[in-house]
């Protein structure tokens, strides 16, 4: 599972467009992952502020 540090996230949507499964959604200031997430960690690696972690 991917956890979002909401205090760090800049809502840039970069993870959304980089997700190979199209499993991330940015609704205003809320980042959501759906059940298609395969825990690949790509978004964790790419987040420019390190707001995502694998848990």
């Amino acid at each position, binding site marked *: 599972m991917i956890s979002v540090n909401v205090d760090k996230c800049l809502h840039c949507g970069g993870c959304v467009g980089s997700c190979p499964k199209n499993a991330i959604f940015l609704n205003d200031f809320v980042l959501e992952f759906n059940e298609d997430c395969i825990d690949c960690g790509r978004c964790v690696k*790419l987040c420019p502020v*390190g707001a995502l972690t694998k848990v």
Partner: protein
Amino acid sequence: MKTYTCDAVVVGAGPAGSMAAKFCAKGGMDVILLEKKAEIGAPLRCAEGVSKSWLDEVGIKPEPAWIRGDMKGAIIKSTKGTTYQLDESKAGNEVGYVLERHLFDKALARDAAKAGAKIMMRTSCTGVIIEDGKLVGIKAKSMGEEIEIRAKVVVAADGYESQVARWAGMDTTLKLNDIDSCIQYRMCNLDVAPDYCEFIIGSCAPGGYIWIFPKGEGIANVGIGVMGTKCTGKADAKYYLDKWIAEDPRFKDAQILEIMGGFVSTLPGLDETTADNLVLVGDAARVIDPITGGGICHACRTGMYAGELLAELNKTGDFSKKALQPYEKRWRDRMEDKLFRNWMAKEKLATLDDDTIDEIIKLIKTSEITNVTVYNLLKAIKEKYPKVVEGFEDLI
């Protein structure tokens, strides 16, 4: 559920979407343009630097309201500090404006509306409607209400996220090598040249560069893009930018007014940007310059090309992939060679160490280039360092 019906629905009111909507509407189509945010053009996800030459090509008249600064030139600097100043006389049309994107984007949306497009704000596309295997519209949430918009054709202008195409079954997934993670600060109290855009390349920004684009009165957009595969561990763009700022004396008194993130694709466009009843434009089609990360001109061109063709096709109502091929051909004829060349150059640049980058900048300084374009720079490099352009020398 409330259902709207139109000829074309355009998802995203950035430059690509507004241009597409404008040209569809101009051609007599009934167009709905969606914007998921509460404001067009904000919050910013852009460094705001553009060249000038393409504006005329897509019929955009420069307006003082959205031009923050008219640049005199550019400064290219290596991580080690070798600097090359490029002046207007040599830079030709590659030098340009620093924009106010929040006003620029609104001006383009206004033009779309003037042409007859209907704009729906705070309306977020949540999926597509497929019936009998055919794309017939999109699902959206508009001010919290679930709606459907049925259309003969869908224009995916949803930016880097590029979700609409994927919902419709296309693959817009990027390779890790073709992604740059970016962060930008709007800073004040800066001691930088007021009318030069600065680019710093090398190990300070692995696989990307640091930019300083002046906004007047000691304010500038200071940002960085880094390639994930060139960073050990996370692509921590913020770490690299903070490190540079801490070591560059011009930032001694600087303060941050705004922080923004954003990603760019760095490949020469998708292999396919059309499907039955679907057209991809702008960042959603991944048509960003792989070297500069600039996408506004490509967004406007693809938006215009798509809009013009759709208006033509509306006469017969055939929006099949086959009918959409002239769009595919037009943007590729206009842009693909350059995108491909710059993609190859980016791949090579990302492998060079600081000493080689330093050498290259020194070479450019001493060479007699009278009109500095990426093309001419690569030509000069080709003569002295053929290895750097290996694999795409034919395009130079």
